């Protein structure tokens, strides 16, 4: 996996990482995390809970934030801290855009804001992370 060729700088925007969403994604995640919950696999259950469709797992958004961090900083980068708030449901068909911006740079280590937003630019899950860069 590619690593940033140059050192990150504060304010740097990281390339967005995009994922479609739906039962193909959610049921594979349920498969490995044993998260077989009706609201995640049945539109009727999603509607009963007040949403227009079934919706994705917060834990899967969490996974995507980690994928993006490795996409940006390489597979040998070490994520030492990560946090997220789940603000809005990822309903069926939402395209997730995982975006990031560097907020601090220390020797061998960066802080980033990392979040998932929909195609309308609404932040569904804001978060942040600290990453130790590989080889440092």
């Amino acid at each position, binding site marked *: 996996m590619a690593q940033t060729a140059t050192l990150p700088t504060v304010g740097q925007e990281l390339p967005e990482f995009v994922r479609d969403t739906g039962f193909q994604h959610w049921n594979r995640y349920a498969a490995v*995390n*044993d998260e*077989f919950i009706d609201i995640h696999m049945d539109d009727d259950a999603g509607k009963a809970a007040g949403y227009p469709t079934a919706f994705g797992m917060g834990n899967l958004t969490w*996974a995507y934030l*980690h994928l993006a961090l490795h996409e940006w900083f390489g*597979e040998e980068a070490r994520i030492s*801290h990560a*946090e997220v708030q*789940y603000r809005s449901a990822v309903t069926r068909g939402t395209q997730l855009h995982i975006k990031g911006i560097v907020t601090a740079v220390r020797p061998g280590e960066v802080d980033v804001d990392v979040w998932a937003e929909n195609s309308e630019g609404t932040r569904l899950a804001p978060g942040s992370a600290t990453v130790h860069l590989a080889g440092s």
Partner: protein
Amino acid sequence: MSEETYISDEMRAIVGKPFNEAVSFPVSRSDIRRWAIAVYYPEVPPRLYWDEDYAKASVYGGIVAPEDFNPFAWASASPGMTTRRAGFNADYLETTFGIQGPGLKTNLNAGSVTDYGSRMRPGDVISTSAHVLSYTEKSGRMGRMLITIIRTTWTNQSGEMVKQTNQTAIRY
């Protein structure tokens, strides 16, 4: 302290007390490989998660699990195999302690804060323990809400911290 509260004396008494203690089955290469396929879908996952030769040459010296991998999925060595729970109980936490919960209808996973330590690897046996860090209340759009923060710590067979998570649940 307000007269009206979701937080009973019984609930206050469980703060800090361990629950959900479990020991995983040994992490298998297959578990890691499938996890990586699932979270990277529809992309092919990185070789680090499924190609031992490739992983040996990396800084990790072998296959590691993605940070967010869950070794307790499906079943754990201790406690053993249980029947699947049908439906969802918003008072799950209090029920575990045998006390009465607030009986609220909705329970949302509001987010989490995680520190990572040692990476999980094939063969690892992970232990977990959780406790309630705090119960608080807040007024919001949905009226009075109960906010529960649960701290969960995972440790590997060498006693190294794998991760520590504070997870926030909102009930109303």
